[in-house]
C-alpha cells in the first residue's frame, strides 16, 4: 500500500536529493535515506490538469482565533525592520554601540518628534495604525472603518502634516546611515547601498521577517513594499531631511584619526583602486594646501556645516585632484611621463594602471549587471492589497516558481558566487580570483623630480574647465555638455571612481570642481594665468 502511495510522489528529497519515500505512521512522507520529512503540500509539482482545479486551494485557516483587541501601529512594524537591519550590520562587523546606543536613541528621538511615542500627547489617528489582515474577517466589512493613509494625507491639517514625516522604507536606510555616521563607523553611504544590493542588509524583502501578528494588507502594503534600491543622492536627501526633522545640532566630530575622515578613508580607496601607497603623502599635502583637512568640514553642524557631508564623494574627489596634480591628466603629460627609460616593475606607470583597471572594471560591471538580473523582487509571500490581487498574485507566483524550478534543474549547479561582505570592490594581488597584480608597492619615481632638495611632481601644469557663474544646482547639466571637451584619461578616471563608490559621474565631477575652487581660490586675479587654449574649447590652463 505504501508503495502505491509513494510511487506517484517523485519529488527529490530536499536534503539528500534521493527519491526514496515512505509513509510514516502519521501519514506523512519521509525520505528513507535521510529521514527528512517532506512537506508534501508545497513541493509536489502536479502536472496533470483536472478541470476546475485551477483555483488556488484554500489556505489553512489559522488555528487560533485572534481577538483584535491589540492595536498595532505602523511605527512598530518599522521598529522590527530597523532591528533586523541593525542586527545584520552588527553581524557584519559593526560595533554593537551603533545599534544599542546610537540607533536606539535616534529612533526614540524620531518617535518623540513625530509624536508617535515617548510623548505625553501621542497621535492616535488611523493614519498611524496598521491594518491587520485576518483570513476569517471579511475585508469589505472591516474596510469601512478605516480611511486609508492616502485619504488622510489629502486633507492635511497642521497636525496631520506630520503624516509626511511618517517612516518609510527609504527612511529606514537614511536613519541607519545617520546612526553609522554618528557612531563614526567606517561604513559610508555607498557601502550601505552596496550591502543592500548584495542582500546583506535586509531591505527588499525585510517585511517577510515581520512577525505573523503584523500581517499587512490594504493600503499599508504601499508603506512596506519596495520597488527599487535608492540611489546615493536620494538617500542623502532623505538623511538631510531627517537631520532637520530630528533637529540634531552637532554630530560627534570626525577628526583626522577617524576612519571617515579623508586622511584615513583615502587609504582604503587608494588600496581598492590599486594605486601606489606613495600617493598618500601627496594627498595629505594637497589637503593641507586646500585647507580641507579640518574636521569641521566633515562633521555635521547646524551652524558651520549645515549640509550632511558625503565622506565617500569628498575623499574620492581629493584622490582625483591629487592624481590630476601629479600626472596632469590632459591626455599628453601623463603619457609623456610614462615614457621614461626605467620601466621596471618597481616603478608605477599610469598606462599599466589604466589597462589593469579598465579590464577589472569591465568584469566588475558585468558581475554587477548579473547581480541586478538575479535580484528577485517578488520572492516570499509578498504583499497584496486585497484578496483578489492576493489570489491572482499567488497564482502567478506559483506559475513563475514552477517554470523557474524547471530551469533550475537544467542549469548547472551554481558555482560558489562570491557574495563577499567585503567593502572592497576589487581584489588585487597574486591569489586566484584576484583582478590583477597589485601595484601598491610601486614607486612614483617616474613622476617626481628633485627640485631644491625637495621631491616635487614633474608635471607643472594644471588645467581647469571653463568656469561658469551660474548657481551650483545648475551644474548638473554642465557635465553632459562638458564631457565632449574633457580629456579622455580624466573621464576614464572619473568613471572608474564613480563605479567604485556607485555614484553618478556628474556628482563626482561637481565635487571635484568644488575642491578645485577651494584649492585654487575663487579670486583668480592675483595669480598669473596663461590662457592657452591647448585643449580646445572650454578649458584653461593655470600655472
Amino acid at each position, binding site marked *: 500500500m505504501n508503495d502505491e502511495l509513494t510511487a506517484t510522489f517523485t519529488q527529490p528529497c530536499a536534503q539528500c536529493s534521493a527519491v526514496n519515500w515512505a509513509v510514516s505512521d502519521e501519514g506523512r512522507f519521509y525520505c528513507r535515506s535521510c529521514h527528512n520529512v517532506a512537506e508534501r503540500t508545497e513541493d509536489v*509539482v502536479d502536472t496533470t490538469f483536472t478541470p476546475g482545479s485551477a483555483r488556488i486551494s484554500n489556505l489553512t485557516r489559522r488555528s487560533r482565533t485572534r481577538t483584535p483587541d491589540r492595536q498595532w501601529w505602523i511605527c512598530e512594524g518599522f521598529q522590527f525592520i530597523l532591528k533586523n537591519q541593525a542586527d545584520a550590520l552588527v553581524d557584519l562587523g559593526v560595533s554593537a554601540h551603533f545599534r544599542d546606543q546610537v540607533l536606539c536613541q535616534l529612533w526614540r528621538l524620531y518617535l518623540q518628534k513625530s509624536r508617535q511615542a515617548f510623548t505625553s500627547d501621542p497621535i492616535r489617528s488611523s493614519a498611524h495604525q496598521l491594518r491587520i489582515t485576518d483570513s476569517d474577517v471579511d475585508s469589505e466589512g472591516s474596510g469601512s472603518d478605516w480611511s486609508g493613509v492616502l485619504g488622510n494625507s489629502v486633507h492635511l491639517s497642521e497636525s496631520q502634516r506630520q503624516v509626511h514625516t511618517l517612516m518609510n522604507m527609504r527612511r529606514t536606510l537614511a536613519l541607519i546611515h545617520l546612526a553609522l555616521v554618528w557612531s563614526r563607523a567606517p561604513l559610508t553611504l555607498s557601502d550601505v547601498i552596496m550591502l543592500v544590493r548584495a542582500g546583506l542588509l535586509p531591505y527588499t524583502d525585510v517585511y517577510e521577517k515581520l512577525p505573523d501578528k503584523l500581517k499587512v494588507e490594504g493600503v499599508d502594503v504601499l508603506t512596506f513594499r519596495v520597488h527599487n*534600491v535608492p540611489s546615493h543622492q536620494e538617500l542623502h536627501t532623505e538623511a538631510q531631511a531627517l537631520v532637520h526633522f530630528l533637529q540634531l545640532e552637532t554630530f560627534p566630530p570626525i577628526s583626522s584619526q577617524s576612519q571617515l575622515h579623508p586622511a584615513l578613508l583615502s587609504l582604503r580607496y587608494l588600496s581598492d583602486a590599486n594605486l601606489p601607497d606613495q600617493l598618500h603623502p601627496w594627498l595629505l599635502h594637497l589637503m593641507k594646501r586646500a585647507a580641507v583637512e579640518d574636521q569641521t568640514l566633515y562633521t555635521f553642524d547646524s551652524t558651520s556645516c549645515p549640509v550632511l557631508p558625503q565622506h565617500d564623494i569628498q575623499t574620492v574627489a581629493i584622490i582625483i585632484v591629487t592624481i590630476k596634480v601629479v600626472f596632469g591628466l590632459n591626455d599628453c603629460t601623463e603619457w609623456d611621463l610614462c615614457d621614461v627609460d626605467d620601466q621596471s616593475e618597481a616603478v608605477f606607470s599610469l*598606462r599599466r594602471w589604466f*589597462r589593469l583597471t579598465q*579590464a577589472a572594471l569591465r568584469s566588475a560591471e*558585468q558581475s554587477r549587471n548579473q547581480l541586478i*538580473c538575479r535580484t528577485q523582487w517578488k520572492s516570499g509571500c509578498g504583499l497584496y492589497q486585497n484578496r483578489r490581487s492576493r489570489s491572482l498574485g499567488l497564482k502567478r507566483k506559483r506559475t513563475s516558481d514552477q517554470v523557474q524550478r524547471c*530551469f533550475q534543474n537544467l*542549469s548547472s549547479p551554481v558555482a560558489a558566487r562570491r557574495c563577499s561582505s567585503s567593502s572592497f570592490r576589487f581584489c588585487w594581488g597574486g591569489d586566484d580570483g584576484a583582478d590583477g597584480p597589485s601595484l601598491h608597492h610601486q614607486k612614483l619615481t617616474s613622476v617626481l623630480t628633485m627640485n631644491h632638495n625637495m621631491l616635487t611632481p614633474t608635471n607643472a601644469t594644471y588645467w581647469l574647465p571653463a568656469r561658469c557663474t551660474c548657481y551650483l544646482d545648475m551644474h548638473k547639466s554642465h557635465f553632459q555638455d562638458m564631457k565632449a571637451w574633457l580629456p579622455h584619461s580624466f573621464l576614464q578616471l572619473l568613471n572608474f571612481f564613480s563605479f567604485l563608490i556607485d555614484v553618478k559621474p556628474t556628482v563626482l565631477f561637481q565635487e571635484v570642481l568644488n575642491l578645485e575652487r577651494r584649492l585654487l581660490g575663487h579670486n583668480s586675479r592675483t595669480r598669473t594665468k596663461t590662457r592657452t587654449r591647448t585643449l580646445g574649447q572650454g578649458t584653461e590652463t593655470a600655472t
Partner: protein
Amino acid sequence: MDDTDPDTDIVNDFEEDKDSSDPFSKRGRQSKLPVPEPMFPSSSGLRGFRQSTTMCLEHIREAMLHHRWQEATEYMVYFPQILQSTSEGSTQQNKELVWRLCTEILHHHPNSTLQDYNNIYERMKHSSSKHYLMISLEHAFHLMLHGCIEDAKHQLSVAQTWRYGKESVIQYQKTKLIHAYSSLLDYINWCDKKSANDGSDHDVLVENTEMQNSFRQVSSNLKEILKHPGVWDPFILSYVEMLEFYQDHTTALSVLKNYAHDSSFPPNPNAHVYLYQYVKRHGAPQKKLLKILKTLHVLVPSHELMLEYSSLLLQSKKSCHGPKALEILLDMLDFSCWRTNLDVWKLLKAVIEKLQLKPDWKTIILKRMSGRTDWWPALHFTRAHATTDSEENPELWAVKASLTKILCPDVPQSYVDAGDTDEEQIHTAL
C-alpha cells in the same frame, strides 16, 4: 589614444610592457582589443523590478542569438519573475514571451527531457487564457513529433472541451484547427489499426468496429471543418483515403469536387491534383480528365501533370488538341526547371511531328512561338547550353538540335553548330 585601450591578456602584456621603449609605435604583436560589450540602451533609465527583468531579457536574447544555450538557461532561472509583474498592459505579452523563450531554450538544450516540456506547457497553458489553445496545439505537435500519439490525442481532446466564456468564442478559428488536428490523429490511429491487422481480409477490416469508430469521429469532425474556407490538404487526403476504404465513392468525389471548385476557398492547385488522381484511379472518361487538367493548367502551367495532359491530348483523335498540346508544352518550357528534361523535349518533338502532318503547321507553330522569339534562344539554345547538353545528355542535345530550326527559324543556329563541333571533338578524341 591607442595606448589607453585595455587588453584582456593582462599578465602577458605586463611583461611585454617593459620591453617597449616607444609607446606610440605599433607593437610587434597585434594588440588584442576586447570584443565590445553588447549595448543595452533600453535598460538605462529603469530601476528595480523593471530594470532586473529588462536586463535579464536582454542577456537571454544575446545568449540565444549567439547560441550560448547554457548561458540562456542560467538567465532563464531568474527571468520568470516577470510573470508576477503587475503592470496591466503587458501581462499577456509577458506570458507569451516566457512561453516561447522556454520552449526555444528547451529545444536546444542538450539535457532537456519530455517531462520538462510537459511541465512548461502545462504551466503556461493554465496561466493564460488567450494562449491556451495555441499552447495546447503546440504541445500536441511536440508530443506527436516524439511519437506519443495517445498523449497528443488526450491534449487535443482536453483542448476541444475547453470553455472560457468569451475567450473561447473569440478564438473559434483556433478551435477549428484543434478539431482538425484531432481528427488527423484519429486518422493516424485508424491507419495504425489497419496496418496492425494487415494480414486480414479486406472485408474483415471493414467490419472492424474500432476502425469504424475512428472513421466516424473523423468524418463527423471533418465534415464540419471542410465547409469552412481554408487550405486543408492533409485532412482532405486522409478523409478521402478513409472514404475509399469504406467504398463511399460518392462522398469522396463530392468532397474533392467541393474542395477544388468552391470559389470561397483560396485557389489551391493541389485540390485539382487530388481530384485528378482520384478520378484517374476510378477510371473516369478522358473528357473528364482533360477538363480537370485544363483548370490546373490555368493555375500552374509548369506543373508536372502538364506532361500527362499533353500526352493525353496527343493521343486523342481530335484535331484541335494537337496545337493545344503544343501550347501546353511550350508553356512548360517557359520555366527553366524543365529546361533539361528529356521527356518534355521528346514529347514536344512528337507533337511537332504529328503537327507536321497538317499543311499549315508552320503557321501554327509560328503563331505559338510569336511571343517567344526574343527570349527563347537565350533560354534554351545558346552555345553554353550546347556544350553542357552535349556533355551531359547527348540525347537531349540531339532532340533539341532537331527542333531549333523549327521553333526559332530566324535565329543563327549557334546551338547546333556548337554542339556539332563538340561532337566532332569528342569523336576525334576517341
